[in-house]
């Protein structure tokens, strides 16, 4: 049924367009500011385009800006995030997948309680575990290391990844598993030859969701990252909130975009998996 362009619909489109502008505005402002010179920023207005765009702020944000004591820009901390996030995403997803498989098709007495207990763990404020965790990492000599940070993300990501996979594997019919058992396949063979080949969509969802959560995290980063292993979010915050010297807004904005780039690109490229993750995880919650 094609909708005619009535006054009502025109108003609707207008409203939707205004909302779109509202959401795009900050991104636009960040971009535009990052290419302006400081003089232009002080003189001009927020939404204006740069008269003489320059990438100087970007270079400084990447390699020269001061994040607390160091002035090496965001680069080292960007790589910290990469080194921390990728293993954490891979491991928490892999474990979540096997867990979900067990909870969906190999239920045993108490497995539902385990699932519920795990789910409740999704809701806790992490403030309530960081103190003992800091102590534990200290005792294990993993304090302020990338490995320690990755470990924390894996442990606290398990609840989400398990839930994603369990909710997905539950839609695989039980009869498929029965047929495989009669054919002679055991626990691991069924996973390898039947469940895993079916799992591409949910692996995508989990990777994207987990990567976004872990890359964007700040709390764990600031508590467990120390100064050498801190992720890019902590470095960004230090950069933007340092009060020494002249505030270089263009560098701040360039830095913010650099920090946001991986997850933003991921969203643009694989956005539909994002939405699927939302609805799969959240609405079931």
């Amino acid at each position: 049924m094609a909708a005619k362009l009535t006054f009502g619909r025109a108003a609707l489109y207008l409203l939707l367009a205004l909302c779109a502008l509202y959401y795009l505005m900050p991104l636009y402002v960040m971009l535009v500011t990052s290419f302006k010179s400081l003089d232009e920023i002080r003189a001009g207005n927020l939404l204006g385009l740069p008269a003489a765009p320059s990438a100087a702020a970007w270079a400084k944000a990447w390699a020269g800006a001061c994040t607390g004591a160091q002035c090496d820009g965001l680069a080292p901390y960007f790589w910290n995030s990469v080194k921390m996030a990728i293993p954490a995403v891979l491991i928490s997803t892999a474990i979540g997948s096997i867990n979900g498989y067990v909870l969906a098709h190999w239920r045993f007495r108490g497995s539902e309680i385990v699932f519920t207990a795990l789910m409740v763990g999704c809701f806790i404020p992490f403030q309530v575990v960081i103190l003992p965790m800091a102590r534990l990492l200290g005792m294990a000599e993993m304090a302020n290391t990338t490995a320690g940070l990755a470990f924390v993300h894996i442990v606290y990501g398990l609840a989400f990844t398990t839930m994603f996979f369990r909710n997905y594997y539950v839609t695989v019919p039980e009869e498929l598993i029965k047929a495989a058992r009669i054919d002679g396949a055991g626990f691991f063979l069924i996973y390898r030859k039947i469940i895993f080949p079916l799992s591409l969509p949910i692996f995508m969802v989990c990777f994207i969701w987990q990567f976004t959560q872990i890359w964007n995290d700040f709390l764990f980063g600031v508590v467990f990252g120390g100064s050498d292993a801190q992720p890019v979010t902590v470095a960004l915050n230090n950069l933007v909130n340092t009060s020494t010297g002249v505030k270089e807004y263009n560098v701040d904005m360039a830095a913010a975009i650099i920090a946001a780039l991986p997850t933003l690109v991921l969203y643009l490229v694989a956005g539909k998996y994002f939405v699927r993750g939302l609805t799969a995880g959240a609405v079931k919650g």
Partner: protein
Amino acid sequence: MPSLSTLADRWLPRLVLSPTIVASLLFVYGFIALTGFLSLTESRLMPNYEYAGFGQYAELFDLERWWTAAANLGIFGALFVLFCLALGLLLAIFLDQKIRLEGALRAIYLYPIALSFIVTGAAWKWILNPGLGLEHMVRGWGFPDFTFDWLINPDMAIYTVVIAGVWQSSGFVMALFLAGLRGIDDSIIKAAQVDGASLPTIYRRIVIPSLRPVFFSVFLILAHIAIKSFDLVMALTAGGPGTSSTVPAVFMYQYAFSRGQLGLGAASAMMMLATIMAVLVPMMYLETKGTRHGR
């Protein structure tokens, strides 16, 4: 005597799940217990196992900064949830009207969720910058008396967090409501149209009530985000100016890590947990009650 493969099939699932079970017991429930225990000790810079009863909590409730944080959480939480729900629902309803370019619009409304709260905080901190940001721009448009210095105004700072937070999370609410709207059986709407109901009435009496489960989920998630809010506040206002926009999460971090008050910090963390439970438990009870009585 059961065969080897039967035994394997019986024990492998338990074995495979056990690391996660142990991790959950230890790192979630165990650590919560430890934090709780810590909150009952005299710990300051270092853990100290001298029992303090509820002394830390008493000290907590004596601190004005804690009450500021709590009040801010109340204000921020209520406004954040309200505006996100309203904006999200509205956008979802609008997008459900068979719009051209729906996919593009949806992507635009939703992208902020891919950003870290730190990035959002940094961006809005710049936009709301008194003197060079929004204020400066509107003045340039010919309104010399326009002021928007909420960021540095102790009374208004917390509201800037609301603005940034709603910008970030309302798209996500929209996505959930849209999914819920799409799940509504078309024939019910058609029956209502045949019955003569107008579009607003249909939305009010049929569509929105059937979104009840989505409301529950969304409310829970938003409340959870609000109570945990740390990143956004740190980036946007760092709890300032002074301590006017501090929230419990920031309070906890500052006291436990910067001010060397482990016991007090632990107590504030337990209070945060209690708050989330206080919201979670009644909500889950209400939701399961609704499902049990059949809808």
